[in-house]
């Protein structure tokens, strides 16, 4: 994308005031977004994002600058201006950059940019028809298709030089059901670190059908009771609870400054021994996967909690300094506009031994959360909340009526202790995770789990 000599000159200019590490991140990204509403393609936009981020470390200080000016003079100026924020010290040296060839784990069969719009639209129309025809109460279907081809070049003063292409494809389906008075929605958004082959091979009957089914089911649902209940959380996107409840607290962003309940607790028991929690950026073509992270480190399988014992954190190069630890291939950013930091990739609870049938049958009275919405956590305290998109009451070991408006609240460290059954049906779900370095594709996953007690907020009262 840019000549090596220019990159080396920029890395050097960045160290001109005494910084001890410099890095260049060049991003050239093509994006296509299309929207279908009321059976019609209403929006279609294509774009090219292009920019360059320059990062300098000086001890525990991090300087970051970005620009869309790609001239050599412009880049050198940007690097020098950023370097002015460093006051003396340091002994930065530049190692000649050496290209590292990445063997991509995530193979792309059909680059989305080579696929004409008509084929993408055909899939959207088919999904629309399936959702629309599911039930006469489905009044509206909204579909959003997105593909991205992100080309990155990462080079640093230690001699690292990596290029990678990340391809993302996603189809989101939202169905709205109405009985003439009320409206309810259902959503499903499968995505992958893959090309158009992922979209063309999607089981639309399943995904579009489920979005419509959730909307109609919620139309028929009662108000959710409030109180403390055993909660069964189904597999796949249900894993969002541990993403919020403990994933964020295991990121170095929070741990390095002791702003996490999990800081300084490696080797301690933080969960029952049936809980193993893993972040794995190498799962082939999964939505949160990467060949290399945004510092050019190869992604890996990081075991965070093993049989209930805290084993590790997700660490980026900068926070590694404060923590006196090694980076774990977990540094990510939404784009060149963001200073990278430790983030999750594909995070999941490992499968256990119970069957879903056993878990439900052994629950006398509780809530079954079939599909989760999103959530949020305060990493400093571990207090989390999230919405349940489709919930049911459980009575005498059986799934009973659907209920709506359920919100789960609790504290991550406590909830982790209360996992009392782990199913054998691990699956992953795609989501977007927002944090300090932007909004990123992540997978959350788990088998069906039971938590002995969670506070459920609803409208019905106790």
């Amino acid at each position, binding site marked *: 994308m840019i000549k090596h000599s220019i990159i080396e000159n920029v890395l050097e200019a960045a160290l001109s005031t005494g910084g001890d590490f410099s890095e260049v991140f060049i991003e050239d990204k093509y994006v296509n977004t299309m929207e279908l509403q009321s059976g019609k393609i209403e929006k279609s*936009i294509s774009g090219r994002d292009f920019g360059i981020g320059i990062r300098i470390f000086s001890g525990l200080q991090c300087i970051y600058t970005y620009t*869309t000016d790609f001239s050599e003079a412009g880049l050198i100026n940007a690097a020098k201006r950023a370097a002015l924020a460093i006051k003396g010290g340091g002994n930065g040296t530049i190692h000649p950059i050496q290209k590292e060839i990445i063997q991509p784990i995530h193979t792309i069969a059909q680059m989305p940019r080579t696929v004409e*719009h008509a084929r993408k639209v055909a899939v959207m129309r088919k999904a629309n028809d399936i959702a629309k025809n599911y039930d006469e109460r489905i009044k509206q279907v909204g579909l959003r298709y997105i593909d991205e081809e992100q080309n990155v070049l990462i080079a640093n003063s230690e001699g690292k030089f990596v290029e990678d292409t990340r391809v993302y494809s996603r189809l989101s389906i939202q169905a709205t059901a109405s009985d003439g008075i009320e409206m309810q929605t259902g959503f499903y958004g499968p995505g992958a670190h893959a090309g158009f082959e992922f979209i063309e091979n999607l089981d639309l009957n399943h995904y579009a059908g489920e979005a419509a089914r959730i909307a109609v089911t919620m139309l028929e649902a009662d108000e959710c009771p*409030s109180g403390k209940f055993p909660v069964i959380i189904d597999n796949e996107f249900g894993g969002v609870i541990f993403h919020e409840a403990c994933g964020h607290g295991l990121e170095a962003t929070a741990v390095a400054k002791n702003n996490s309940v999990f800081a300084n607790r490696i080797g301690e028991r933080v969960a029952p021994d049936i809980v193993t929690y893993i972040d794995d950026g190498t799962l082939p073509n999964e939505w949160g996967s990467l060949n290399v992270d945004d510092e050019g480190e190869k992604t890996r399988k990081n075991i965070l909690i093993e049989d209930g014992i805290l084993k590790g954190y997700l660490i980026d190069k900068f926070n590694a300094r404060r923590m006196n630890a090694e980076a774990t291939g977990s540094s990510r950013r939404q784009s060149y506009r963001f200073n990278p930091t430790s983030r999750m990739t594909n995070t999941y609870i490992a499968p256990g031994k119970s069957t879903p049938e056993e878990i439900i049958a052994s629950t006398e009275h509780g809530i079954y959360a079939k599909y989760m919405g999103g959530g949020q956590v305060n990493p400093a*305290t571990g207090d989390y909340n999230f919405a349940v998109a489709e919930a049911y009451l459980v009575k005498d070991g059986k799934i009973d009526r659907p209920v709506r408006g359920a919100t789960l609240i609790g504290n991550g460290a406590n909830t982790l202790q209360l996992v009392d059954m782990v199913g054998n049906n691990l699956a992953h779900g795609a989501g977007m995770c927002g944090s300090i370095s932007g909004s990123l594709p992540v997978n959350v996953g788990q088998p069906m789990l039971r938590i002995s007690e969670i506070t459920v*907020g*609803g*409208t019905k009262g106790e």
Partner: protein
Amino acid sequence: MTINEFQEKLLAEAMDAGFTESEVYYQRSESLQLMIFEGEIDSYETSENGGIGLRGLYNGKMGYAYTEKIEQASIRFLIDSAKANADVLDEDDGTDIFEGSEKYAGHDFYSEELANVPIPEKIELIKLIEKKTLAYDPRIITLDYCVLQDYSEDRVIANNKGLSLKEKMNGLVIYISVVVKEGEEMKTGTYVKMTRDFGALDADTIAKEVAEEALSNLGEQSIPTKKYPVIMRYDASASLLATFTPIFSAENTQKDQSLLKGKVGEKIAANVFTLLDDPFHPDAMAGSNFDGEGVASEKRIIISNGTLETLLHNRKTAKKDGVETTGHAHKSSYKSTLTVAPMNMYIAAGTKSKEDLIASLEEGVLITGLSGLHSGASTISGDFSVAATGFHIKNGKIVSAVKQMTIAGNFFDYMKDIKETGSDLEFMPGGYGSPSLLVKELSVTVD
């Protein structure tokens, strides 16, 4: 190639390539962000960047494309992409390129004075805020965020119908989050302020405000789960309003995505509820002299004493509904197509102070913060069930912080259930403002 050359060439070549109308939207911004940790600059970020978007009418349909790479080859990319995007649309979306309004307000959104504050002064201020906050009380253990950010932005809309609009704006944001600990109880408190008046920022005041906010959250108690009268503090109220703004968009009523469809002229809220959008409100930061398609912006009443006066329109939705645009075409950046959104939407203030509202309650809950709004609120059904922080009120007084809770209700009912609006109108950074509101009741579930 300079941006001006690029822009002119792009418009000319688009017309040659078969577009009947075309427009460019250009933005360039600069920013500085400082994060302080334990007396040192932990991170220092600067940026300058920009991009350009093309929209044009091709075979009667509006195609869009954008780029951040300003070079000769991008002209072809923009034109070809915009054509391909126009081709795939199902029908003319009813919009065309606007020739411009007769008059623009000419309000100034840029402060030279703020632009001239030297960086060392900003560093000194944010370091001082950290120091004073840490020193305020021994229970304050750390600041998990202590951030100062400033930004400036230029935007240009230019089209083949002779419209050429420019605007410059800037602003500064302080964001602080404090962690406090007493025994085993840990709480946080946050402070956010957006301003163009650097001189008005006082480290002592800010330190006191964020420290008191965090400390007040200590000593939490559980209260019975049931329906309580609720006072939504101005900031919690503004965030709830922001979440439900899409219900006021004509784009959403036209797509059957808002229950306000067909409700213009009807009473949809309590008498005390008046909702306005004022692009020029002196306390708000998100205004502009023109909207995303170049229509002159003006102050509008959306709900007047409970009656829905108008929905928010851009030119396309207005045409469909047979009304005039309200100047709410929204283009969040050159990367976006046009949607509908307010500029500085706020609930009009009443006369009673927050203290008066609290004093008027025999028992209730004061809500000071909401979280999980992005997932726990549906703009389509109006239902919300979200986590909240706040205080238990008894006999007209705050008795304690409440353990983690959720509140649940329906926004359409909530608007009708507002009993009183406070006098303490404040704007949040996103451009939403509210006074504290007294609401008849909401379901409150406590951990």
